[in-house]
């Protein structure tokens, strides 16, 4: 609980983060930037968990626990994604999604 800050304000920040992430994910061409957008979305959700837990259900720490698991899983996901991006980079010498287009229709 942060004194002087209401739950609505925190939720506004987390929702903004989430949708900025969605926007970046859909519009960016660089694979690394897309992964950063993904991180923004995941962190927006993590803030939601902690904020709900602190403000509405302060009795038990289950929301914070979920946020911890989320951070760990997000790290695994990004590590794997980076590995696949590097594999791709070795083939096309670029990290641009526009060039990843051999499979279509």
């Amino acid at each position, binding site marked *: 609980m942060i004194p002087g800050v209401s739950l609505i304000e925190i939720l506004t920040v987390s929702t903004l983060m989430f949708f900025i992430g969605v926007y970046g994910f859909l519009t960016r061409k660089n694979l690394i930037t897309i992964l950063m957008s993904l991180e923004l979305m995941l962190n927006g959700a993590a803030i939601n968990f902690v904020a709900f837990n602190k403000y509405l259900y302060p009795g038990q720490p289950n929301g914070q626990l979920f946020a911890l*698991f*989320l951070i760990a899983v997000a790290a695994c996901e990004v590590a*794997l*994604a980076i590995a*696949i991006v590097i594999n791709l980079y070795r083939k096309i010498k670029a990290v641009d999604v526009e060039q*990843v287009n051999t499979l279509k229709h």
Partner: protein
Amino acid sequence: MNWDDLLLMRHELQLLAVILIVTCAEIYLSGRDKSRIIPLSLALFGIHMAAGWLWPVEGELFGGMYRTNGLIHLMKSILDVGVFIVILQAGGWARKQLAPENRVSEFFLLIWSSLLGMYYMVSAGDLLMVFLGLELSTLPVAALAAYEVLKMRSAEAGIKFILTAGLASAVTLMGISLLYGSTGTFVLADLGKQMQGNSLEALGFIFFFAGVAFKISLVPFHFWTPDVYEGAPVSVAAYLSVISKGAAVFILMILLMGFAPLLTDLWVNVLYLLAILTMTIGNLFALRQRNLKRLLAYSAVAQAGFIMLGFMSSQQDGKASIIYFMLVYLFSNLAAFGVVQTIEMHTGKEDIGDYEGLYRTNPRLSLVMLLALFSLAGIPPLAGFFGKFFLFMTVASAGYYLLLTIAVINTVISLYYYLLIVRAMFLRKSDNPLPLVTSDGWMRAGLVICVAGIVALGVASGVYDAIYALCAHL
């Protein structure tokens, strides 16, 4: 907690033991002997599958985070059978392609890790467990899709899959956080009780549903499906189309029918719309495909639409028809992918045009393909007919006649493109048909199991009755 309680997790512990044994074999076997890992893995998993069918148990562990009962036991056993057939069919490919590069055991370990995630997902009694299971079942598949590291299209399939999976899991998490904000709990049983049916819960539920729909490849979330199926190794595509989809259908069934009664009106309407969209768009896009893997991918999308029909009734018949259809679909689709894999491995061809005159040179493979396609289309007396029949019965008894009509029209459309392949194989003559392809023993065994399943499930009515009885309590 004592040892008897741990036996509730028998499926998971067995699979973990198999994973550890194969990991040790990978460490201790020297380079030349590594191809022995293939028969070892198949044998161990066969034992695990056989032992898994025995003694269904019922109970809860870890304060309700993990739960199991007869129906969940059946779901896990069905997934086991599917994975067993997939790795049987992959045996020859692993020996030919992976053994020289020393990458055999990772293939099996990744598939099994993903299966382990599905076990925990299906057994989850808590949204945290659902989320962890979902991630554990998705991430290894991304690595598998990019498994042929030397091929550009495999790398492309991997990157497309991991990015869409990441987006789906982020959206799911947002949904879970909104559900948590409204109810203050993750435990599924409490969640059902504490829901008030307000719009925050509805939004959270739709976000959560989007993540699961991605795995089932329902229509607005299906864009990854054809690309990943085409680029990934064939056995990985088979795994995605049957096992991964099956597990997601099962967890959706458990969540919707068991724990979200207050939102019933909402999800019935959502699924009504998605079923129509998925069937129609999947079928229409399948019509214009020339590549067989892409065609099967769109056919898998369309079949997902048919599966959604079973959700129209949350009674016993809805559940039973979904599980029965999944079982039938498993055998039919794996048979089709098995034939595609055999042809692709030996000749590198995967277009419909290449299959012209296949019956002349490879009569047995063509017959297996014929049975698989007829079963997918739903032609009696094969099992696929009864699978679809029970789904249609469910829709009819729930009173959705418009949906039923659209579904029947879609069955006819799907028959067209399935028969297109049959025509190429049997009726067309080709100047240079594919040469005679001899499949290896493992692939043959896998195909025989599939054909036996397709034929036997259509004849044996006891199977549906047994599933129906198990569905009495979810």
